[in-house]
């Protein structure tokens, strides 16, 4: 039996290692994909030269395409995929709801409203960027959800219901602002961003999001066992020695922070947080010490490829990545619903 458990421990290590390998290969491959032909080895030589380890053999234009456009974009896709998937896994465990994710809890909608307020209404008088607007919006929306759910009784169902209410409220606010105040040009730009897009990825955003992801992931892994304890509900967790209220506050704030950072960098990319934790659970089971790292890797690989698909499928036109994730996510959502229906 002990052998069995350490075997499954090895299996997880293998999954993670294989996943990171696949992720590295994926990123190397996708930076070579696009209208400007750049080989995989050329792409790597650019990276090595920028790190001071080799000489550039490519034209500055192509080197710039790899280093300034494709590589940060692929990395941001990986970070967003990993981060959103981990947020979903944590929220689903914490709220005991298989459908919880940053969208359902209204965080993404709040971020969208914040961004629109900055771009269309000019809130902040130019001092605020679209990202910081989104960040403020996400935090405000999440604070509202927590306040509302506390007022309504503080149970997990109330948190989810409050999230849905906030999502509706902020979506309507966003539409209202866009439709009443935006000119056609801004409206189009904002709508594109609202659907989720990694096209404006810059190194500064990659660095910030990577930092937040690393911090939040570390916190969540520290709470992995505590999340396991929530399987039979908050009261059962309490009798296992878990400080339920503190755990909820810490983890919900951490995931809201991460969501805010990701949405402000890449817009509202839907369904990653909802669907990928379920895929990861099918691979390694529900133990969060194993589930969270695997979810992160699966999410990263998934979004790297989805984004590549989004920017190449209708070349030269780009499809918002959120549209592609939703096109894939909705059928997956139905499968999740179908499975939970059978389980009860």
């Amino acid at each position, binding site marked *: *039996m*002990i052998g069995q*458990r350490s075997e499954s*421990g090895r299996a997880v290590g293998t999954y993670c290692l294989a996943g990171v390998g696949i992720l590295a290969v994926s990123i190397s491959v996708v930076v070579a994909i696009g209208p400007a032909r750049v080989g995989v080895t050329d792409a790597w030589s650019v990276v090595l030269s920028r790190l001071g380890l080799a000489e550039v053999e490519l034209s500055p234009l192509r080197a710039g395409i790899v280093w300034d456009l494709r590589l940060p974009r692929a990395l941001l896709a990986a970070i967003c995929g990993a981060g959103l998937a981990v947020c979903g896994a944590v929220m689903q*465990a914490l709220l*005991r709801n*298989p459908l919880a994710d940053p969208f359902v809890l209204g965080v993404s909608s709040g971020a969208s409203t914040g961004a629109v307020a900055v771009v269309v209404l000019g809130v902040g008088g130019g001092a605020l960027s679209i990202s910081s607007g989104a960040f403020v919006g996400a935090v405000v929306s999440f604070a509202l959800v927590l306040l509302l759910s506390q007022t309504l009784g503080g149970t997990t169902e109330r948190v989810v219901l409050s999230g849905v209410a906030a999502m509706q409220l902020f979506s309507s606010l966003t539409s209202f602002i866009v439709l009443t105040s935006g000119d056609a040009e801004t409206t189009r730009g904002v709508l594109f961003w609202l659907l989720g897009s990694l096209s404006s990825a810059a190194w500064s955003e990659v660095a910030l999001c990577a930092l937040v992801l690393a911090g939040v992931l570390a916190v969540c892994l*520290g*709470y*992995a*066992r*505590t999340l*396991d*304890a929530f*399987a*039979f*509900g908050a*009261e*059962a967790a*309490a*009798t*296992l*020695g*878990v*400080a339920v209220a503190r755990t909820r506050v810490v983890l919900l704030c951490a995931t809201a922070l991460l969501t805010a950072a990701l949405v402000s960098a890449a817009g509202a990319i839907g369904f990653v947080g909802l669907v990928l934790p379920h895929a990861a*659970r099918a691979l390694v*089971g*529900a*133990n969060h010490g194993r589930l969270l790292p695997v979810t992160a890797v699966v999410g990263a690989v998934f979004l790297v490829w989805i984004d590549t698909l989004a920017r190449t499928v209708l070349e030269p036109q780009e499809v918002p990545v959120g549209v592609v994730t939703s096109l894939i996510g909705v059928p997956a959502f139905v499968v999740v619903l179908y499975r*939970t229906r059978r*389980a*009860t």
Partner: protein
Amino acid sequence: MSGGQAGLSADRVSRTAGGRLILDTVSVTPAAGSTVGVLGPNGSGKSTLLRLLAGVLAPTSGLVTLDDQPLPEWGRRRLAKRVAVVQQQADTQVELSVRDVVSLGRIPHRGPWSPISAEDHAVVAAALVDTGLADKADRAWQTLSGGERQRAQIARALVQQPRELLLDEPTNHLDIQYQLDLLTLISRLPLTTIVALHDLNLAAMYCDQLVVLNRGSVVAVGTPRAVLTVELLAEVYGVRAEIEHPETDGPPHVRFLGVLGQ
């Protein structure tokens, strides 16, 4: 408060919820190693009493102590290593194996980053054997019968290595065979066990002491023989009954005759 009281003790605890008195100055002090049955009609406060003893609810007044120290001073994790709880019909949508569920009981024993130790494995394996689940360890929780689920929850509780075990109507909705089977298991555990029960005859068979609650107050405490009387059943449950006392030391048997006044 009496000094030198080992184990769990509720001292004149009351609990009000929504302006309604759910428990009214209840005192319970189970003897170490005994099985105490908590009886009473629906809404008499059985679950609330157990939740106060488990420390998941705070009494509105009065004090619950463990080894003479008030529960809030114990700290959650330290308390979880002393007092384990089996809830009424615990269920989950998470896909877990029996071993996963039982292993949850090790959570209070492990630090946030420490891996599973050989001791953890040994304790889980022993609890699976003790509850007769060794051959079902890799079964999915969702495929278990009601009786097997309760066994798995008891195994999980044992893995916490408690000295006090609280169970809230563990035999609800089980077939009679599983009820007897489960209560035999519970009454043989070398722990101080407090179990809320519905069935008076099962309580008489398996408990050393009974505490009877009615509308939030204790109306009788003692051995099954002393507690289960025609008058008490009339007063608390509103039923007519006969109590048969066997010649030997066996438990009394309640035979219901009808509703009072009919």
